[in-house]
């Protein structure tokens, strides 16, 4: 099981902004519609701002990474938060030996 997880194309999605009803629902609906599997969700408040992070597996995604990142950003703009999608590697390299 663990070996599989490592081989997946994992992406980190972050949502930062003012907390409001339905943020997670909106993002999750988008991910489900695009066959992106959520592996982990966590959230915290930093300096009054809502921060959410999702680790997702985009191996079976129906769209290219660029397109997904762009559409998530657009959803963010619509609901007034910042949504970013980044490959997990950048975090992994920086924080793990």
């Amino acid at each position: 099981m663990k070996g599989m997880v490592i081989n997946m194309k994992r992406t980190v999605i972050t949502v930062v902004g003012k907390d409001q009803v339905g943020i997670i629902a909106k993002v999750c609906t988008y991910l489900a519609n695009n066959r992106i599997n959520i592996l982990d969700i966590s959230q915290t408040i930093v300096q009054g701002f809502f921060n959410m992070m999702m680790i997702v597996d985009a191996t079976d995604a129906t769209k290219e990474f660029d397109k997904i990142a762009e559409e998530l950003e657009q959803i963010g703009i619509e609901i007034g938060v910042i949504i970013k999608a980044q490959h997990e590697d950048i975090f992994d390299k920086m924080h793990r030996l």
Partner: protein
Amino acid sequence: MINIHEVIETNKMIEQENLDVRTITLGISLLDCAGPDLNEVNEKIYNKITTVAKNLVSTGNKIQREFGIPIVNKRISVTPIALVGAAACKTSADYVTIAKTLDRAAATVGVNFIGGFSALVSKAMTTSDELLIKSIPQALSQTERVCSSVNVGSTKTGIDMNAVKLLGEIILETAELTKEKDSIGCAKLVVFCNAPDDNPFMAGAFHGVTEGDAVINVGVSGPGVVKKALESVRGADFEVLCETIKKTAFQITRVGQLVAQEASKMLNIPFGIVDLSLAPTPAVGDSVAEILEEIGLDYAGAPGTTAALALLNDQVKKGGVMASSYVGGLSGAFIPVSEDQGMINAVEAGALTLEKLEAMTCVCSVGLDMIAIPGDTKATTISGIIADEMAIGMINQKTTAVRLIPVIGKTVGESVEFGGLLGHAPIMPVNKFGCDSFINRGGRIPAPIHSFKN
């Protein structure tokens, strides 16, 4: 698995502390473009660059999107043109045609700078080296993107003082030919001692003859991240200070390593090195001088500056070396004046002088960089400054460089605006006493005793 606090920390570095990858530089060997026919050489150079570097910019942009980290510059370095053009160029004007070809190729593939209009003359100049050096003023004034460098000394060979003398004149001539734009031509010309073959940073980048056909070198940045990290350890002792710099440098370099590997994979070109240099920009919060201030100085240039810079440079290397499989290039803190707002402030406050900058170059890379001086400075004085800086490199077995801009028509009290990453700079005073007889001796300074290690 990565946790949310680590993700927030990384994104804060990118969004608020100016963490970026300063450059992906693609080194391309042009040795196979050499030949006796100038037109053919030009054609081969253009074709080779536009073929090998075809996907460089799009690849850089793709990596930027995937990791969410800005990759500020995509650049190209080529084999020193004095070698490539030696058989074909009979005059300096011939070399200018190659500069124009490089410019055109750079524009076609969409890079903002191409380095390697260079000559390696650390012992002596060949006829073609001399022709190339004499073509530099025309080449830099007639092109936009071409960068030039000349290596005039090394620990192994000593210093070619004939080249040093000539370059004093060449720098002034370049300044004169680009005087409408505050002598900006000189911002694209670097004089080196112990120039590295794999430097990804402009204006001194060239693809050394020890390199393969093509190579990806990456320059990281992140002075703002180091500064921010040091804010949390104010008042702590040197052990804590040094550990903090080291850890931060490790994190920054890991990003560079990741980007370099990705670029290498996508372009199918071998990964060369990550250059660990802390490279400032004129943006506030992206300054090496501000790190020195955070370490405890009122301004860069105050007593203690050389020691602070020495420890900074050393800790950056110690943290960075473990983060990358290959480290190279210049790898040290850069202290360009015009490109660093904290340095500019220090000069304007009267804290930082040319002489103090020279002392600082003994303990960091790379040298007297992006310093505007009065336009009426004598050629021999410029050569004297170059000779001093080269001597520091030669004796200390390190790279040193000089990138001075004598601003024609301007003097101390005025300032210049170069724009963009090149920034702006107050014109700094130069020692008024002459060194004509010293520079006019000619010949070369022998290699130092400690270079004889065999």
